């Protein structure tokens, strides 16, 4: 009978090692199984109601950047002037690279006209001689392309303004309506998405009825450069008018010059709660639609006239829920 060998301490350790190794392996396997396990608890998860839903996004709760009245220059257009053919209206737009706060605490490397996206509101009366100088203080070639009727060499497509250079666009303002302007350098998508656009109002020879006039430019911001917008807004910062509602009087018509410059998304829209309004597409004729929702593709614009029946707080927003919840939402505070 062969003599039995004594088992050494080393051999015992060796024997136990695979078992020890099995522990972390099993943990890994179980961990994955737990992560993949499907829902089993029946019913809705119920809890105390949090400050959720866009109806609750009011006042201090709203994650919007900026201070009260900071956007007044973009919201309230310059004063309308009486019809006087041949009068010169001059504007200077400086294009520059700018870090802009597009949502609370979120900074976007934008390109701007006069430091903001959208750029300043340009206003003229039909038959004014418009003289707009573009100074390019940015790092890329830019232009200004106006919508409207003008000579071919004033179109902002072929006259590329290199960094450090400037160019003056000169043409009679026509036709009346809500126009717009934007950069037309290539790559076009990039130059618009970065923030180079603005409102361009041409008033009719016979003045419109007096109203509380507002300008709203719809746009989005693709902060991570993936070709899809991360934030949407009116006149720049997301949720700004949810935090700082626009105060209007019920006694006087509210007129909104509305334009859509949103890049990447096919359409944008404007919807007003609790009220109907007259919508004049492009605002160049008397034709209007009576509605509470309008849809605009990029470059489409028009004029909205609201006669509020009621006082109180009324929401306005894109009727694409996604845009609403990514910043394109605000309130009117209608007072007597």
């Amino acid at each position, binding site marked *: 009978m062969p003599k039995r060998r004594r*088992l050494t301490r080393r051999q015992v350790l060796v024997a136990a090692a695979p078992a020890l190794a099995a522990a972390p392996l099993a943990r890994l396997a179980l961990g994955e199984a737990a992560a993949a396990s499907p829902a089993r608890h029946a019913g809705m*998860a119920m809890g105390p109601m949090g400050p959720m839903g866009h109806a609750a996004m009011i006042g201090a709760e709203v994650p919007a950047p900026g201070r009260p009245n900071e956007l007044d220059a973009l919201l309230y257009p310059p004063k309308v002037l009486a019809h006087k053919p041949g009068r010169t209206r001059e504007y200077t737009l400086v294009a520059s690279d700018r870090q802009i706060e597009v949502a609370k605490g979120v900074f976007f490397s934008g390109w701007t006209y006069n430091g903001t996206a959208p750029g300043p509101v340009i206003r003229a009366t039909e038959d004014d001689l418009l003289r707009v100088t573009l100074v390019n203080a940015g790092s890329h070639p830019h232009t200004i392309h106006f919508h409207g009727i003008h000579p071919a060499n004033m179109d902002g497509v072929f006259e590329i303004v290199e960094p450090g250079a400037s160019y003056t666009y000169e043409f009679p303002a026509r036709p009346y309506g809500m126009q717009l302007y934007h950069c037309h350098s290539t790559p076009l998508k990039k130059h618009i998405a970065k923030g180079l656009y603005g409102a361009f109002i041409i008033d009719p020879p016979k003045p419109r009825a007096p109203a509380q006039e507002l300008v709203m430019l719809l746009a989005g911001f693709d902060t991570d450069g993936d070709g899809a917008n991360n934030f949407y807004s009116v006149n720049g910062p997301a949720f700004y008018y949810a935090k700082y509602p626009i105060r209007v009087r019920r006694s006087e018509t509210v007129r909104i010059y509305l334009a859509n410059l949103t890049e990447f998304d096919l359409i944008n829209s404007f919807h007003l709660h609790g009220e109907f309004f007259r919508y004049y597409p492009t605002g160049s004729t008397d034709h209007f639609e009576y509605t509470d929702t309008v849809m605009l593709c990029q470059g489409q614009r028009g004029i909205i006239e609201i006669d509020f029946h009621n006082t109180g707080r009324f929401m306005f927003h894109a009727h694409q829920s996604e845009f609403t919840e990514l910043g394109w939402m605000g309130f009117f505070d209608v007072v007597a």
Partner: protein
Amino acid sequence: MAATSAAERRSGGAWRLWALVPLLLLVGVVALFASSGTSLLDLVGRAPPALDQFDIRRVEFKPGEITIRVTNPQRKKLTIASVTVDDAIVPFRTDGPTSLSRLRSSRIVVPYQWVDGDPYTVGVTSSSGIETTASVAAAVEARGASPRGFLGYALIGLLVGVIPVALGLAWLPSLRRADPRWVAAFMALTAGLLSFLALDALA
């Protein structure tokens, strides 16, 4: 005879010492490369900047809220600026700083009426606008501590920690009879497996 064995022992010790030399050299070279920062890479061109992405470590669903554990894996400081659930900006608070230094973590708490079993995607956007998203295939309530859970963990621990050791020890009689070459082979396999697991755990 005695002199020879002493010499053998000495040369054996030297062999062990020499085996350390490449390791020490490797440590030196790695340290040198690490301490050079980007100066070496700059010679061949500028590396693209790291995206300001967070690492979303864990998304938990509790009644009326979603919690998101984020870590900053980047060299530079990252700030939590905006939080979304299914592409909608939501109010949030953090247990911990909103500005995270390298490898620091914070827990984001979002009050939210989530639907059991529905898929969710949460997004955390840094102050530079870069969004990090994490998707959960089906929302399930995360359990807190309970006797039931304690029992479950105890059973799992028994299953993965005690029973395998016992099974391993059951090899004892056969190992006692095994050829030393087989024992050496088992040991080599075990050492390799343990080394792999140790390295794999770091990843």
